[in-house]
């Protein structure tokens, strides 16, 4: 036992590498460990701060749940990233190595003790990392992430198997079967809840209306925001009649003097119809007298008063922001111009010509009894909503039949008798602006190009609606539900029908019931679930790496494994960092659906452990993911046990007999001589060290990983949409801010990565050869460092990007950007060379230096903003603004020249003597005798 304890302590201690430390680091391992722990604690505090704001939040059910899942997933994924990086960096300490065996084999220690001590040290290192990282977060978040105080029913977000495409005629029976889980006790359509569904499906001329629950085919529902598509068609009609223009400022359609003309761009009718006006979702002066009917007393005067105060200036960077206020204002403005009330405008312009007699704002005495009772998320009956000034945003009521008629008119406007209405409908559909990703928006209609369908959804206090049609696939779908869209039933059913029509795997209509969690027992359970999940996630990632490393060691001959090991290490690193940054961080229903389906996201372990967290909390939600987590843990557990077992049975005994490195009998070791003799020596030494030292490659890979991740952030996320002024079908061929910024970032991170790698010594004790070598002044050393840095960072990135941009872009733009990029690289390299003269890979490293890196990471947001701004200027320059090009190039040249002059000056001054220690040696040192 004593032997085990000693070995355990030794192995655990070895998980932190001390060989890099300067002999003057003084605090040695405890200082480094202290810094490591402080950094983790700092992050832990940082990620706990938002917990203060989340506690007790009981917003809309779906949104609250998604927020909680997003936070939980973030914590799990970050834990896995951290443990994964730790495991990768301590790659060589995980298994007994030659040193362990050679030192310990002559001692009376059994192999079992050695191996068990190693495994225990690895496990302890894992637990300590997770424990310190969650020291604060692990107390704050379980308390903040309130489990529901009452039983909740939420969509299971799983996928039903694909089946042959179902046609409109067969949809009712299929849906009846698929909807069965939603009618189970506690589910939204359970018997006795009063919730019903009316569905209309039309496909290639075949139309069917059918209902479930209390709904009848002639039941009248509030269609809520689907009304906006009617307002959009009304706008198109007035445009075609020449009464308004799409680019007309909204101010001109309001009563004279209602709002002042702003300086600069004004909100136009098109901005309102595409939700790009910058106006908020709802007006701020909404003070409902009756909370159950909150928009009934919001009059045109209230609307004008708000607009008078808010103004009609269009923000220069207005992006998609869904606005009921905007559409309400548009409806009001159109009514003003047409000289009729909004309901009359719709009736004469759209519903009457289409024969939609049951589509109206005010119900007739005949229609009133058919108006179905609405319900809130808790199945309590609620009153219908009446809209006055905001009518254009959601006042209409309709039946499934009428809405199907409306959708058929949208599907085939060419078949309408009224040419004017047909033209207006076609005009309203044309996509005009970006919503997000591949989704565009027309005059009200959203267009999902991924499924080639126009869609809109709606919801009021007691109703949910979903409409969709696809001219390409010739179908139309309407789903009306008399329950609040807090449970997204209408959208789920609508999407399900679309998928059944096309024969795709369909989103399941099953629901799961999350039990209530209260009191001290509930808290204790959450605490246990949190810590168990985090430890399990950490163990999974650590175990996966151990398995991969251990099995590779068994399958490959040892000398080959030793060489392949570093590549495996880099691959593991890239996979961990790449997975972390590439997977979605904001959890939505779509993300969970994708994770639970057999796609790319379903292979992301952080989602599995999100499922495990729910399961341990007693929630049946995400159960398929939880099953994968258990399976993953089992596989990795077995793999790790197998790896250690084989290590015990085979490697420990063979390790002494086999040479660590196979002799090289062949090989040309030629490298060109660049510059003077001494310069060439340092350059060749730098290149060989970076190519052959695993540690330094890892450091560079770390920076490159971050660089690539940020590149992806710029290129693939909504940020890219935001930065791209003209979203194009092929964004790679556009001279866009994201591409410019990405290439600059890549250059920056590469230079920085190589510079940081240079600063970490390879073998301090071997430096004597540089110290006794003859050299005068620092010019030779500076030249060597400069050329090494350029050779290993600026030149390879520049050449790679040159090939890419010359292939993708027009010659002029590509050459212009490459010139700028070259100057950026030169300037960055020159800035990196400032400071004391140090031969790459030879100077001792002081732990205190990590403060600089910490500062850098804190300032990363600022760096990104600066790069994006700089790229925006560069884009202007490349688009033909010669003055801007001269200015950008001039600034970079000045920075480069200034940094170069300073570096040369330092090299000629007293700083020219190479330094091998960060600080001057203290008086007390090892005697070195």
């Amino acid at each position, binding site marked *: 036992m004593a032997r085990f304890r000693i070995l355990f302590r030794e192995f655990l201690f070895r998980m932190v590498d001390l060989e890099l430390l300067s002999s003057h680091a003084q605090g040695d391992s405890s200082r480094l460990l202290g810094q490591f722990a402080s950094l983790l604690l700092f992050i832990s505090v940082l990620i706990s701060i938002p917990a203060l704001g989340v506690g007790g939040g009981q917003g809309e059910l779906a949104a609250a749940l998604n927020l909680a899942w997003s936070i939980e997933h973030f914590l799990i994924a970050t834990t896995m990233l951290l443990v994964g990086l730790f495991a990768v960096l301590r790659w060589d300490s995980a298994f007994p190595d030659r040193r362990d065996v050679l030192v310990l084999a002559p001692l009376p220690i059994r192999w079992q003790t050695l191996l068990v001590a190693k495994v225990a040290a690895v496990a302890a290192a894992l637990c300590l990392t997770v424990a310190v990282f969650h020291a604060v977060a692990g107390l704050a978040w379980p308390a903040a992430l309130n489990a529901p105080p009452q039983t909740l029913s939420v969509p299971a977000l799983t996928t039903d198997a694909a089946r042959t495409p179902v046609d409109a005629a067969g949809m009712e029976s299929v849906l009846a079967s698929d909807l069965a889980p939603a009618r189970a006790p506690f589910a939204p359509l359970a018997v006795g809840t009063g919730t019903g569904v009316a569905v209309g499906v039309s496909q290639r001329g075949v139309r069917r209306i059918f209902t479930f629950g209390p709904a009848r085919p002639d039941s009248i529902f509030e269609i809520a925001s689907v009304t906006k598509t009617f307002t959009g068609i009304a706008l198109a009609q007035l445009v075609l009649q020449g009464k308004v223009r799409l680019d007309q400022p909204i101010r001109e359609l309001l009563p004279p003097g209602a709002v002042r003309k702003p300086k600069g761009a004004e909100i136009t009718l098109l901005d309102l119809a595409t939700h790009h006006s910058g106006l908020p979702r709802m007006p701020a002066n909404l003070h409902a007298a009756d909370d159950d009917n909150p928009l009934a007393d919001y009059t045109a005067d209230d609307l004008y008063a708000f607009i008078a105060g808010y103004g009609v200036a269009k923000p220069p960077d207005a992006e998609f922001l869904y606005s009921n206020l905007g559409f309400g204002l548009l409806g009001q403005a159109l009514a003003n111009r047409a000289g009729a009330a909004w309901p009359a405008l719709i009736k004469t312009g759209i519903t009457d010509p289409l024969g939609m007699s049951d589509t109206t704002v005010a119900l007739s005495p005949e229609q009133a009894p058919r108006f179905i009772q609405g319900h809130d998320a808790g199945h309590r009956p609620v009153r219908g909503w009446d809209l006055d000034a905001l009518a254009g945003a959601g006042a209409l009521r309709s039946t499934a039949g009428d809405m199907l008629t409306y959708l058929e008119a949208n599907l085939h406007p060419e078949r309408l008798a009224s040419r004017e209405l047909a033209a207006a409908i076609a005009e309203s559909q044309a996509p005009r602006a970006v919503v997000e990703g591949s989704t565009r928006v027309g005059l009200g209609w959203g267009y999902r190009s991924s499924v080639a369908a126009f869609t809109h959804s709606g919801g009021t206090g007691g109703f949910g609606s979903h409409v969709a049609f696809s001219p390409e696939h010739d179908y139309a779908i309407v789903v009306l539900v008399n329950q609040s869209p807090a449970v997204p039933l209408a959208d789920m059913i609508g999407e399900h029908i679309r998928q059944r029509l096309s024969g795709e795997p369909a989103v399941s209509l099953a629901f799961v019931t999350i039990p209530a969690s209260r009191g001290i027992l509930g808290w204790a359970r959450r605490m246990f679930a949190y810590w168990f999940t985090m430890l399990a996630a950490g163990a999974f990632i650590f175990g996966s790496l151990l398995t991969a490393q251990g099995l590779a060691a068994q399958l490959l001959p040892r000398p080959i494994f030793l060489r392949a090991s570093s590549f495996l290490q880099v691959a593991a690193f890239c996979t961990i960092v790449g997975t972390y940054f590439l997977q979605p961080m904001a959890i939505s229903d779509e993300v969970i659906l994708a994770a639970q389906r057999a796609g790319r996201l379903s292979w992301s372990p952080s989602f599995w452990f999100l499922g495990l967290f729910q399961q341990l909390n007693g929630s049946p939600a995400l159960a398929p993911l939880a099953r994968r987590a258990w399976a993953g843990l089992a596989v990795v557990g077995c793999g790790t046990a197998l790896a250690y077992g084989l290590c015990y049975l085979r490697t420990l005994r063979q390790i002494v007999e086999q040479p660590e490195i196979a002799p*090289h009998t062949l090989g040309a070791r030629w490298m060109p001589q660049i510059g003077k*003799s001494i310069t060439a020596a340092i350059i060749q030494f730098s290149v060989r060290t970076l190519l*052959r030292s695993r540690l330094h490659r890892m450091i560079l890979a770390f920076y490159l990983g971050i660089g690539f991740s940020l590149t992806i952030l710029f290129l693939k996320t909504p940020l890219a949409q935001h930065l791209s002024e003209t979203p194009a079908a092929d964004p790679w061929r556009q001279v866009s801010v994201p591409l410019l910024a990405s290439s600059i970032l890549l250059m920056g991170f590469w230079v920085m990565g190589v510079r940081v790698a240079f600063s970490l010594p*390879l073998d301090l004790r071997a430096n004597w050869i540089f*110290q*006794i070598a003859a050299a*005068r002044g620092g010019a030779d050393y500076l030249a060597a460092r400069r050329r090494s840095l350029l050779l290993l960072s600026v030149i390879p990135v520049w050449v790679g990007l040159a090939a890419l941009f010359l292939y993708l872009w027009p010659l002029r733009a590509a050459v212009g950007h490459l010139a700028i990029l070259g100057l950026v690289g030169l300037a960055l390299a020159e800035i990196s060379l400032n400071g004391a003269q140090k031969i790459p890979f030879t100077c001792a490293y002081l732990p205190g230096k990590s403060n600089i890196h910490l500062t850098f990471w804190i300032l990363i947001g600022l760096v990104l903003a600066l790069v994006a701004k700089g790229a925006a200027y560069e884009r202007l320059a490349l688009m033909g603004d010669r003055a801007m090009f001269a200015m950008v190039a001039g600034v970079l040249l000045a920075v480069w020249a200034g940094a170069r002059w300073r570096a040369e000056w330092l090299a000629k001054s007293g700083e020219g003597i190479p330094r091998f220690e960060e600080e001057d040696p203290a008086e007390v040192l090892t005697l070195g*005798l």
Partner: protein
Amino acid sequence: MLELRGVSKRYSGMLAVDHVSFVASPGEVTGYLGPNGSGKSTTMKMITGLIERSSGEILFEGVPIERDLSAYKQRFGYVPEEPHLYAHLSGLEYLVMVGQLRNLPGKPTRERIDGLLRLLGLHGDRYTPISAYSKGMRQKVLLAAALLHDPDLLLLDEPFSGLDVGSAMVLRSLIQELAARGKTILFSSHELETVERVSSRVVILHRGKVVADDSIERLRKLMSLPSLEGIFSQLAMEQDTAALTREIADLIRK
């Protein structure tokens, strides 16, 4: 000629090397002896300029070495006590790098390196990383690196460490041959027999101070002792060897 005049090295008040003075002349092999911790390697490192001395003067050919340290560094070859080399380089790459660092002309140096590798029996392993070399092979690389630029002064700190018998014999002869060709050679070793055979003069260090500096012959006569081992144990050993041996044997028996 290498001359040390009152050279001292002080670490936080403690004198590691205490006013050491001696002269190593061309054509002569000077043995530098002393027990562990007596200050031999510290003196060697001060002579190479790797560490700064606290006081005293080091002159080479009558000129203080600081006057033109770069020029002085071109004149000596050094084999350190421990074979610390950049293990990721091959033996050939390491020697090429040393040649470049010493500003030697490319092609002749390459030929010289090839010759040295062949003569030292490393040619077959010239592409193998040094990490795979045995201690003796590393020692040979150090020796080749020290001889590469045909130095006038050779500073050899435990040069026989790890060498096999054959290589040690070659090195012994080589040291004598180089001395005969007018090189100044200062070498320290714990192998007194070798020192006795190779050196004409010895400097014996004890607790940082020079306790003897003379030819072995004169020391023998002066101290009336037949061997260098006897002289050494009398001058530099504080304990009676036989008594110490008995004490250790008794201790481990308990």
